[in-house]
Protein backbone atom coordinates (compact mmCIF):
# COMPACT_ATOMS: atom_id res chain seq x y z
CA UNK A 1 0.00 0.00 0.00
CA UNK A 2 1.28 3.48 -0.91
CA UNK A 3 1.08 5.98 1.94
CA UNK A 4 1.59 9.73 1.74
CA UNK A 5 4.32 11.32 3.83
CA UNK A 6 1.72 12.52 6.32
CA UNK A 7 0.18 9.05 6.61
CA UNK A 8 3.64 7.50 7.09
CA UNK A 9 4.38 9.97 9.84
CA UNK A 10 1.12 9.12 11.61
CA UNK A 11 1.85 5.39 11.31
CA UNK A 12 5.26 5.96 12.90
CA UNK A 13 3.63 7.62 15.89
CA UNK A 14 4.70 11.18 15.16
CA UNK A 15 1.10 12.37 15.53
CA UNK A 16 0.37 10.60 18.79
CA UNK A 17 -0.65 7.12 19.89
CA UNK A 18 -4.29 7.38 18.84
CA UNK A 19 -3.46 8.37 15.28
CA UNK A 20 -0.81 5.68 15.16
CA UNK A 21 -3.36 3.07 16.21
CA UNK A 22 -5.95 4.38 13.73
CA UNK A 23 -3.45 4.21 10.86
CA UNK A 24 -2.33 0.74 11.96
CA UNK A 25 -5.97 -0.36 11.62
CA UNK A 26 -6.33 1.27 8.18
CA UNK A 27 -3.09 -0.25 6.92
CA UNK A 28 -3.87 -3.72 8.31
CA UNK A 29 -7.37 -3.59 6.81
CA UNK A 30 -6.04 -2.21 3.55
CA UNK A 31 -3.34 -4.86 3.21
CA UNK A 32 -5.86 -7.59 4.08
CA UNK A 33 -8.24 -6.35 1.36
CA UNK A 34 -5.58 -5.53 -1.29
CA UNK A 35 -6.04 -1.76 -1.23
CA UNK A 36 -3.32 0.27 -2.92
CA UNK A 37 -3.92 3.56 -1.08
CA UNK A 38 -6.08 5.44 1.41
CA UNK A 39 -8.77 7.84 0.23
CA UNK A 40 -10.83 10.50 2.06
CA UNK A 41 -14.28 9.64 3.39
CA UNK A 42 -16.90 12.19 4.46
CA UNK A 43 -19.04 10.27 6.95
CA UNK A 44 -18.40 7.36 9.28
CA UNK A 45 -21.13 5.31 10.93
CA UNK A 46 -19.91 3.20 13.83
CA UNK A 47 -21.02 -0.17 15.16
CA UNK A 48 -19.69 -1.60 18.40
CA UNK A 49 -21.98 0.37 20.73
CA UNK A 50 -24.16 -2.21 22.47
CA UNK A 51 -22.56 -3.52 25.70
CA UNK A 52 -24.22 -6.82 24.85
CA UNK A 53 -21.85 -7.22 21.90
CA UNK A 54 -18.62 -5.42 22.81
CA UNK A 55 -18.51 -6.44 26.48
CA UNK A 56 -15.97 -5.29 29.06
CA UNK A 57 -13.11 -5.35 26.58
CA UNK A 58 -14.90 -2.89 24.31
CA UNK A 59 -16.00 -0.69 27.18
CA UNK A 60 -12.46 -0.49 28.56
CA UNK A 61 -10.93 0.18 25.16
CA UNK A 62 -13.34 3.03 24.37
CA UNK A 63 -12.91 4.51 27.81
CA UNK A 64 -9.14 4.53 27.41
CA UNK A 65 -9.09 6.14 23.96
CA UNK A 66 -11.84 8.68 24.77
CA UNK A 67 -9.38 10.90 26.64
CA UNK A 68 -7.44 11.80 23.51
CA UNK A 69 -9.30 10.55 20.45
CA UNK A 70 -11.44 12.98 18.43
CA UNK A 71 -13.31 12.31 15.19
CA UNK A 72 -12.25 14.19 12.05
CA UNK A 73 -15.44 13.75 10.00
CA UNK A 74 -19.18 13.53 10.64
CA UNK A 75 -19.64 10.36 12.68
CA UNK A 76 -22.89 8.70 13.67
CA UNK A 77 -23.60 5.73 15.90
CA UNK A 78 -25.44 2.41 15.93
CA UNK A 79 -28.06 1.49 18.58
CA UNK A 80 -27.06 0.64 22.14
CA UNK A 81 -28.74 -1.80 24.54
CA UNK A 82 -31.71 0.16 25.91
CA UNK A 83 -33.77 3.37 25.95
CA UNK A 84 -32.86 5.32 29.08
CA UNK A 85 -36.43 6.73 29.21
CA UNK A 86 -37.97 3.37 30.01
CA UNK A 87 -35.07 1.05 30.91
CA UNK A 88 -36.52 0.69 34.43
CA UNK A 89 -39.44 -1.30 32.93
CA UNK A 90 -37.14 -4.02 31.66
CA UNK A 91 -35.38 -5.56 34.63
CA UNK A 92 -31.89 -4.94 33.28
CA UNK A 93 -29.06 -5.34 35.78
CA UNK A 94 -27.24 -2.29 37.15
CA UNK A 95 -23.89 -3.38 35.80
CA UNK A 96 -25.24 -3.50 32.25
CA UNK A 97 -26.70 -0.02 32.57
CA UNK A 98 -23.57 1.55 34.00
CA UNK A 99 -21.27 -0.12 31.43
CA UNK A 100 -23.58 0.93 28.61
CA UNK A 101 -23.63 4.52 29.85
CA UNK A 102 -19.84 4.50 30.04
CA UNK A 103 -19.73 3.43 26.37
CA UNK A 104 -22.20 6.20 25.50
CA UNK A 105 -20.06 8.77 27.34
CA UNK A 106 -16.88 7.60 25.63
CA UNK A 107 -18.37 7.97 22.16
CA UNK A 108 -19.73 11.41 23.02
CA UNK A 109 -16.32 12.48 24.33
CA UNK A 110 -14.78 11.39 21.03
CA UNK A 111 -17.19 13.73 19.24
CA UNK A 112 -19.60 11.19 17.79
CA UNK A 113 -23.21 12.26 17.16
CA UNK A 114 -25.17 10.07 19.59
CA UNK A 115 -27.78 8.97 17.04
CA UNK A 116 -28.05 5.36 18.31
CA UNK A 117 -29.67 4.34 15.07
CA UNK A 118 -29.13 1.63 12.47
CA UNK A 119 -30.89 3.71 9.77
CA UNK A 120 -28.57 6.72 9.32
CA UNK A 121 -29.67 6.85 5.66
CA UNK A 122 -33.18 7.71 6.80
CA UNK A 123 -32.55 10.30 9.52
CA UNK A 124 -29.58 12.25 8.10
CA UNK A 125 -29.17 14.12 4.82
CA UNK A 126 -27.57 12.02 2.10
CA UNK A 127 -24.38 13.52 0.61
CA UNK A 128 -24.00 13.95 -3.13
CA UNK A 129 -23.69 11.00 -5.49
CA UNK A 130 -20.59 8.77 -5.26
CA UNK A 131 -19.45 10.26 -1.95
CA UNK A 132 -17.19 7.84 -0.07
CA UNK A 133 -18.47 6.99 3.42
CA UNK A 134 -17.55 4.29 5.96
CA UNK A 135 -20.59 2.46 7.34
CA UNK A 136 -20.07 -0.39 9.79
CA UNK A 137 -23.75 -1.24 10.19
CA UNK A 138 -24.40 -3.84 7.51
CA UNK A 139 -27.96 -2.87 6.54
CA UNK A 140 -26.87 0.76 6.33
CA UNK A 141 -23.84 -0.05 4.16
CA UNK A 142 -26.05 -2.04 1.77
CA UNK A 143 -28.71 0.68 1.70
CA UNK A 144 -26.07 3.38 1.10
CA UNK A 145 -24.53 1.45 -1.79
CA UNK A 146 -27.76 0.21 -3.37
CA UNK A 147 -30.23 3.07 -2.91
CA UNK A 148 -28.36 6.22 -1.84
CA UNK A 149 -25.61 6.30 -4.49
CA UNK A 150 -22.90 6.36 -1.82
CA UNK A 151 -19.79 4.18 -1.71
CA UNK A 152 -18.74 2.09 1.26
CA UNK A 153 -17.39 -1.32 2.04
CA UNK A 154 -19.05 -3.38 4.74
CA UNK A 155 -16.82 -1.90 7.42
CA UNK A 156 -15.97 -3.47 10.76
CA UNK A 157 -16.45 -1.54 14.01
CA UNK A 158 -12.71 -0.90 13.99
CA UNK A 159 -12.15 0.13 10.40
CA UNK A 160 -15.08 2.57 10.69
CA UNK A 161 -13.68 3.97 13.95
CA UNK A 162 -10.25 4.38 12.34
CA UNK A 163 -11.94 6.13 9.40
CA UNK A 164 -13.79 8.46 11.79
CA UNK A 165 -10.52 9.41 13.53
CA UNK A 166 -8.53 9.94 10.32
CA UNK A 167 -11.17 10.80 7.70
CA UNK A 168 -9.72 8.05 5.48
CA UNK A 169 -10.38 4.53 4.37
CA UNK A 170 -8.54 1.89 2.31
CA UNK A 171 -9.41 2.12 -1.40
CA UNK A 172 -10.59 -1.40 -2.13
CA UNK A 173 -13.50 -3.56 -3.22
CA UNK A 174 -16.84 -1.67 -3.48
CA UNK A 175 -15.13 1.70 -3.17
CA UNK A 176 -13.68 1.13 -6.64
CA UNK A 177 -15.99 -0.71 -8.96
CA UNK A 178 -18.45 -3.49 -8.65
CA UNK A 179 -19.13 -6.06 -11.30
CA UNK A 180 -21.29 -8.81 -9.82
CA UNK A 181 -20.78 -12.28 -11.26
CA UNK A 182 -24.20 -13.42 -10.11
CA UNK A 183 -27.78 -12.46 -10.97
CA UNK A 184 -30.68 -13.49 -8.76
CA UNK A 185 -34.03 -13.56 -10.46
CA UNK A 186 -36.90 -12.72 -8.11
CA UNK A 187 -39.71 -15.13 -8.86
CA UNK A 188 -42.17 -14.94 -5.96
CA UNK A 189 -45.69 -13.59 -6.44
CA UNK A 190 -47.21 -10.92 -4.14
CA UNK A 191 -44.10 -10.38 -2.03
CA UNK A 192 -44.36 -8.71 1.39
CA UNK A 193 -41.51 -7.11 3.36
CA UNK A 194 -40.94 -10.56 4.85
CA UNK A 195 -40.38 -12.02 1.37
CA UNK A 196 -37.91 -9.23 0.57
CA UNK A 197 -36.10 -9.88 3.84
CA UNK A 198 -35.80 -13.52 2.81
CA UNK A 199 -34.60 -12.52 -0.66
CA UNK A 200 -31.88 -10.38 0.96
CA UNK A 201 -30.93 -13.21 3.32
CA UNK A 202 -30.68 -15.59 0.36
CA UNK A 203 -28.68 -13.06 -1.68
CA UNK A 204 -26.23 -12.54 1.20
CA UNK A 205 -25.54 -16.26 1.29
CA UNK A 206 -24.92 -16.75 -2.41
CA UNK A 207 -23.41 -13.36 -3.28
CA UNK A 208 -19.78 -12.36 -2.94
CA UNK A 209 -19.38 -8.57 -2.55
CA UNK A 210 -22.28 -7.52 -4.81
CA UNK A 211 -25.15 -9.15 -6.73
CA UNK A 212 -27.60 -8.24 -9.49
CA UNK A 213 -31.27 -8.74 -8.74
CA UNK A 214 -33.75 -8.92 -11.58
CA UNK A 215 -37.53 -9.11 -11.59
CA UNK A 216 -38.11 -6.69 -8.71
CA UNK A 217 -41.35 -4.74 -8.72
CA UNK A 218 -41.74 -1.27 -7.25
CA UNK A 219 -40.81 -1.59 -3.57
CA UNK A 220 -41.78 0.59 -0.62
CA UNK A 221 -39.30 1.75 1.98
CA UNK A 222 -40.21 -0.98 4.45
CA UNK A 223 -39.52 -3.63 1.83
CA UNK A 224 -36.24 -2.05 0.77
CA UNK A 225 -35.02 -1.87 4.38
CA UNK A 226 -36.08 -5.48 4.98
CA UNK A 227 -34.04 -6.59 1.99
CA UNK A 228 -30.93 -4.67 3.15
CA UNK A 229 -31.31 -6.04 6.69
CA UNK A 230 -31.68 -9.61 5.46
CA UNK A 231 -28.67 -9.39 3.22
CA UNK A 232 -26.40 -7.90 5.87
CA UNK A 233 -27.20 -10.75 8.21
CA UNK A 234 -26.10 -13.69 6.14
CA UNK A 235 -22.82 -12.87 4.45
CA UNK A 236 -20.28 -10.37 3.22
CA UNK A 237 -22.29 -9.05 0.28
CA UNK A 238 -22.80 -5.27 0.58
CA UNK A 239 -24.49 -4.09 -2.59
CA UNK A 240 -27.19 -5.07 -5.00
CA UNK A 241 -27.72 -3.69 -8.47
CA UNK A 242 -31.01 -3.81 -10.30
CA UNK A 243 -31.25 -5.70 -13.55
CA UNK A 244 -30.00 -8.74 -15.40
CA UNK A 245 -26.29 -7.90 -15.32
CA UNK A 246 -23.79 -9.07 -17.94
CA UNK A 247 -24.65 -12.05 -20.09
CA UNK A 248 -21.83 -14.09 -18.52
CA UNK A 249 -23.34 -13.70 -15.03
CA UNK A 250 -24.37 -16.89 -13.34
CA UNK A 251 -28.17 -16.95 -12.92
CA UNK A 252 -30.02 -18.19 -9.84
CA UNK A 253 -33.71 -18.11 -9.13
CA UNK A 254 -35.35 -17.01 -5.88
CA UNK A 255 -38.67 -18.81 -5.82
CA UNK A 256 -41.21 -20.31 -3.38
CA UNK A 257 -38.82 -23.16 -2.65
CA UNK A 258 -36.13 -20.72 -1.48
CA UNK A 259 -38.74 -18.84 0.58
CA UNK A 260 -39.56 -22.14 2.27
CA UNK A 261 -35.86 -22.82 2.92
CA UNK A 262 -35.30 -19.49 4.67
CA UNK A 263 -38.58 -19.94 6.55
CA UNK A 264 -37.49 -23.40 7.73
CA UNK A 265 -34.13 -22.04 8.83
CA UNK A 266 -35.41 -19.07 10.85
CA UNK A 267 -39.01 -19.83 11.82
CA UNK A 268 -38.96 -22.10 14.87
CA UNK A 269 -42.35 -21.39 16.49
CA UNK A 270 -45.98 -21.27 15.45
CA UNK A 271 -46.72 -18.32 17.71
CA UNK A 272 -44.86 -15.74 19.78
CA UNK A 273 -45.27 -14.48 23.36
CA UNK A 274 -44.37 -10.95 22.28
CA UNK A 275 -44.04 -9.06 19.00
CA UNK A 276 -41.12 -6.91 17.89
CA UNK A 277 -41.20 -4.43 15.03
CA UNK A 278 -38.00 -2.85 13.89
CA UNK A 279 -34.75 -4.26 12.79
CA UNK A 280 -33.86 -2.06 11.03
CA UNK A 281 -35.51 0.57 13.27
CA UNK A 282 -38.74 2.07 11.94
CA UNK A 283 -38.62 5.46 10.24
CA UNK A 284 -41.33 8.12 10.47
CA UNK A 285 -43.32 6.88 7.48
CA UNK A 286 -43.42 3.36 8.89
CA UNK A 287 -44.54 4.74 12.28
CA UNK A 288 -47.22 6.76 10.52
CA UNK A 289 -48.34 3.73 8.52
CA UNK A 290 -48.40 1.59 11.66
CA UNK A 291 -50.53 4.17 13.49
CA UNK A 292 -52.99 4.16 10.57
CA UNK A 293 -53.14 0.35 10.50
CA UNK A 294 -53.82 0.26 14.25
CA UNK A 295 -56.76 2.72 14.15
CA UNK A 296 -59.44 1.21 16.36
CA UNK A 297 -57.38 -1.88 17.11
CA UNK A 298 -55.23 -3.08 20.03
CA UNK A 299 -52.52 -5.69 20.36
CA UNK A 300 -53.48 -8.84 22.21
CA UNK A 301 -49.93 -9.17 23.54
CA UNK A 302 -46.87 -7.01 24.16
CA UNK A 303 -45.49 -5.32 21.05
CA UNK A 304 -42.07 -3.64 21.15
CA UNK A 305 -41.53 -0.96 18.49
CA UNK A 306 -37.94 0.19 17.84
CA UNK A 307 -37.28 3.60 16.31
CA UNK A 308 -34.55 6.27 16.43
CA UNK A 309 -34.90 8.96 19.10
CA UNK A 310 -35.33 11.73 16.52
CA UNK A 311 -38.20 9.78 14.94
CA UNK A 312 -39.75 9.10 18.35
CA UNK A 313 -39.71 12.86 19.07
CA UNK A 314 -41.27 13.73 15.71
CA UNK A 315 -43.86 11.00 16.19
CA UNK A 316 -44.72 12.38 19.61
CA UNK A 317 -45.32 15.86 18.20
CA UNK A 318 -47.54 14.57 15.41
CA UNK A 319 -49.49 12.35 17.80
CA UNK A 320 -48.48 8.93 16.46
CA UNK A 321 -46.89 7.98 19.78
CA UNK A 322 -50.21 8.33 21.61
CA UNK A 323 -51.94 6.26 18.94
CA UNK A 324 -49.36 3.48 19.18
CA UNK A 325 -49.26 3.45 22.97
CA UNK A 326 -53.05 3.32 23.09
CA UNK A 327 -52.85 0.22 20.87
CA UNK A 328 -50.46 -1.39 23.35
CA UNK A 329 -47.08 -0.67 21.73
CA UNK A 330 -43.96 -0.14 23.82
CA UNK A 331 -41.95 2.46 21.90
CA UNK A 332 -38.19 2.20 22.37
CA UNK A 333 -35.57 4.52 20.95
CA UNK A 334 -31.75 4.26 20.96
CA UNK A 335 -31.91 0.45 20.72
CA UNK A 336 -33.16 -2.28 18.39
CA UNK A 337 -34.41 -5.88 18.23
CA UNK A 338 -31.03 -6.91 16.95
CA UNK A 339 -28.87 -8.04 19.92
CA UNK A 340 -31.23 -6.53 22.48
CA UNK A 341 -30.64 -7.44 26.13
CA UNK A 342 -34.32 -6.64 26.80
CA UNK A 343 -35.56 -10.02 25.55
CA UNK A 344 -34.23 -13.19 27.13
CA UNK A 345 -35.25 -16.78 27.26
CA UNK A 346 -35.96 -16.74 31.00
CA UNK A 347 -39.08 -14.68 30.38
CA UNK A 348 -39.87 -15.21 26.70
CA UNK A 349 -40.06 -18.47 24.76
CA UNK A 350 -40.82 -17.11 21.31
CA UNK A 351 -40.99 -13.77 19.50
CA UNK A 352 -43.17 -12.86 16.53
CA UNK A 353 -41.48 -10.50 14.06
CA UNK A 354 -41.56 -9.47 10.40
CA UNK A 355 -37.78 -8.92 10.41
CA UNK A 356 -35.40 -11.52 9.01
CA UNK A 357 -32.49 -9.68 10.56
CA UNK A 358 -34.26 -9.58 13.92
CA UNK A 359 -35.17 -13.26 13.62
CA UNK A 360 -31.59 -14.30 12.95
CA UNK A 361 -30.23 -12.56 16.05
CA UNK A 362 -33.16 -13.46 18.32
CA UNK A 363 -32.58 -17.09 17.46
CA UNK A 364 -28.79 -17.18 17.47
CA UNK A 365 -27.92 -14.58 20.06
CA UNK A 366 -30.90 -14.33 22.45
CA UNK A 367 -31.62 -18.04 22.08
CA UNK A 368 -35.40 -17.61 21.81
CA UNK A 369 -37.71 -19.17 19.23
CA UNK A 370 -38.98 -17.07 16.36
CA UNK A 371 -42.33 -16.84 14.62
CA UNK A 372 -42.10 -15.03 11.27
CA UNK A 373 -45.08 -13.04 10.02
CA UNK A 374 -45.53 -10.08 7.71
CA UNK A 375 -46.79 -6.85 9.26
CA UNK A 376 -50.21 -7.19 7.65
CA UNK A 377 -50.53 -10.72 9.11
CA UNK A 378 -49.39 -9.44 12.49
CA UNK A 379 -52.09 -6.74 12.46
CA UNK A 380 -54.68 -9.24 11.26
CA UNK A 381 -53.91 -12.00 13.75
CA UNK A 382 -52.39 -10.29 16.78
CA UNK A 383 -54.76 -7.35 17.27
CA UNK A 384 -58.42 -7.04 17.97
Amino acid at each position, binding site marked *: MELTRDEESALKGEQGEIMQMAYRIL*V*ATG*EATDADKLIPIEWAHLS*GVNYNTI*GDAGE*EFLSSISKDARVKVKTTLNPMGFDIDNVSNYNLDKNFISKQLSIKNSYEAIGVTPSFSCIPYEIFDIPKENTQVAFAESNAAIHANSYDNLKTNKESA*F*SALASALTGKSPYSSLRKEDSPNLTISMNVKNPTELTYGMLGFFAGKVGDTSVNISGLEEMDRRQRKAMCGGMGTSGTCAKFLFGDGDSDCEKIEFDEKEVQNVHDELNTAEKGDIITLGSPQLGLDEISDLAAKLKGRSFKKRCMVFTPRTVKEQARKIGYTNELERAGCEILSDCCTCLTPLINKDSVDAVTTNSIKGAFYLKNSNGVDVNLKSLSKIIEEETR
Partner: protein
Amino acid sequence: MKILVHGKVKGVVQKSNNSINFLGTVDKKTGIISDKNHDLFEKSIANTILVFPSGVGSSVGAYTIYSIKSNNSAPLAMVCKKADLTVATGCALANIPVLIISENEFDSLKNGMKVEIDTESNIPLSIYE
Protein backbone atom coordinates in the same frame (compact mmCIF):
# COMPACT_ATOMS: atom_id res chain seq x y z
CA MET B 1 4.47 -12.41 2.06
CA LYS B 2 2.27 -9.59 3.28
CA ILE B 3 2.80 -7.40 6.33
CA LEU B 4 -0.45 -6.39 8.03
CA VAL B 5 0.98 -4.94 11.23
CA HIS B 6 4.63 -3.90 11.53
CA GLY B 7 7.00 -4.74 14.36
CA LYS B 8 10.11 -6.57 15.52
CA VAL B 9 10.09 -9.55 17.92
CA LYS B 10 11.87 -12.83 18.65
CA GLY B 11 10.12 -15.88 20.02
CA VAL B 12 9.15 -19.54 19.85
CA VAL B 13 6.61 -20.88 17.36
CA GLN B 14 3.31 -22.16 18.74
CA LYS B 15 1.68 -23.73 15.70
CA SER B 16 -1.90 -24.74 15.11
CA ASN B 17 -3.54 -26.22 12.06
CA ASN B 18 -6.95 -24.97 13.18
CA SER B 19 -8.39 -21.52 12.64
CA ILE B 20 -9.00 -19.49 15.80
CA ASN B 21 -12.25 -17.77 16.79
CA PHE B 22 -10.98 -15.17 19.23
CA LEU B 23 -14.46 -14.29 20.47
CA GLY B 24 -15.31 -16.90 23.03
CA THR B 25 -12.58 -19.52 22.65
CA VAL B 26 -9.56 -17.65 24.04
CA ASP B 27 -9.42 -16.78 27.75
CA LYS B 28 -8.91 -13.04 27.99
CA LYS B 29 -6.87 -13.24 31.22
CA THR B 30 -4.58 -16.15 30.47
CA GLY B 31 -4.55 -16.56 26.69
CA ILE B 32 -5.53 -20.23 27.10
CA ILE B 33 -7.62 -21.82 24.34
CA SER B 34 -10.86 -23.20 25.77
CA ASP B 35 -12.28 -24.87 22.67
CA LYS B 36 -12.22 -28.65 23.24
CA ASN B 37 -12.10 -29.32 19.51
CA HIS B 38 -9.06 -27.11 18.95
CA ASP B 39 -5.58 -28.57 18.59
CA LEU B 40 -4.31 -25.95 21.08
CA PHE B 41 -6.96 -26.86 23.70
CA GLU B 42 -5.73 -25.95 27.21
CA LYS B 43 -2.56 -24.40 25.78
CA SER B 44 -1.70 -20.74 26.20
CA ILE B 45 -0.92 -18.55 23.23
CA ALA B 46 0.74 -15.97 25.52
CA ASN B 47 4.18 -14.77 24.49
CA THR B 48 4.43 -17.11 21.52
CA ILE B 49 4.84 -16.58 17.81
CA LEU B 50 1.35 -17.86 17.03
CA VAL B 51 1.22 -19.60 13.64
CA PHE B 52 -2.25 -20.61 12.45
CA PRO B 53 -4.28 -20.66 9.21
CA SER B 54 -6.48 -17.62 9.93
CA GLY B 55 -8.91 -16.03 12.34
CA VAL B 56 -12.62 -16.80 11.99
CA GLY B 57 -15.86 -15.54 13.52
CA SER B 58 -17.23 -12.19 14.64
CA SER B 59 -15.09 -9.12 14.13
CA VAL B 60 -15.80 -8.26 17.79
CA GLY B 61 -13.11 -10.87 18.46
CA ALA B 62 -10.70 -8.02 17.75
CA TYR B 63 -11.53 -6.68 21.21
CA THR B 64 -10.49 -10.03 22.68
CA ILE B 65 -7.08 -9.64 21.07
CA TYR B 66 -6.86 -6.16 22.59
CA SER B 67 -7.87 -7.61 26.00
CA ILE B 68 -5.33 -10.42 26.04
CA LYS B 69 -2.66 -7.87 25.15
CA SER B 70 -3.79 -5.59 28.01
CA ASN B 71 -3.55 -8.60 30.33
CA ASN B 72 -0.02 -9.43 29.12
CA SER B 73 -1.28 -12.74 27.74
CA ALA B 74 -1.10 -12.03 24.03
CA PRO B 75 1.13 -13.68 21.43
CA LEU B 76 4.29 -11.74 20.49
CA ALA B 77 3.25 -11.96 16.84
CA MET B 78 0.73 -13.75 14.65
CA VAL B 79 1.56 -15.50 11.38
CA CYS B 80 -1.30 -16.70 9.17
CA LYS B 81 -1.90 -18.18 5.73
CA LYS B 82 -4.98 -16.10 5.04
CA ALA B 83 -5.66 -12.48 5.98
CA ASP B 84 -8.88 -11.91 7.92
CA LEU B 85 -10.22 -8.68 9.34
CA THR B 86 -10.58 -9.86 12.95
CA VAL B 87 -6.90 -10.69 13.30
CA ALA B 88 -5.87 -7.69 11.19
CA THR B 89 -7.82 -5.12 13.20
CA GLY B 90 -7.38 -6.83 16.58
CA CYS B 91 -3.61 -6.93 16.20
CA ALA B 92 -3.62 -3.37 14.85
CA LEU B 93 -5.46 -2.24 18.00
CA ALA B 94 -3.11 -4.18 20.24
CA ASN B 95 0.04 -3.44 18.23
CA ILE B 96 0.96 -7.08 17.62
CA PRO B 97 2.92 -7.74 14.39
CA VAL B 98 1.05 -9.83 11.77
CA LEU B 99 2.48 -11.55 8.71
CA ILE B 100 0.61 -13.42 5.99
CA ILE B 101 2.73 -16.19 4.49
CA SER B 102 2.42 -18.75 1.70
CA GLU B 103 1.31 -22.35 2.09
CA ASN B 104 4.93 -23.55 1.70
CA GLU B 105 6.26 -21.10 4.26
CA PHE B 106 3.46 -22.14 6.60
CA ASP B 107 4.37 -25.82 6.21
CA SER B 108 8.02 -25.10 6.94
CA LEU B 109 7.28 -23.57 10.35
CA LYS B 110 7.24 -26.15 13.17
CA ASN B 111 6.32 -26.02 16.80
CA GLY B 112 9.22 -24.94 19.03
CA MET B 113 11.25 -23.24 16.30
CA LYS B 114 12.89 -19.99 17.34
CA VAL B 115 12.10 -17.24 14.87
CA GLU B 116 12.70 -13.55 14.48
CA ILE B 117 10.19 -11.19 12.92
CA ASP B 118 11.43 -7.82 11.70
CA THR B 119 9.07 -6.18 9.25
CA GLU B 120 11.59 -3.47 8.35
CA SER B 121 14.23 -5.99 7.28
CA ASN B 122 14.60 -7.66 3.85
CA ILE B 123 13.76 -10.99 5.48
CA PRO B 124 10.72 -10.22 7.65
CA LEU B 125 10.60 -13.77 9.04
CA SER B 126 13.73 -15.78 9.81
CA ILE B 127 14.55 -18.92 11.77
CA TYR B 128 17.54 -18.20 13.99
CA GLU B 129 18.08 -21.41 15.86
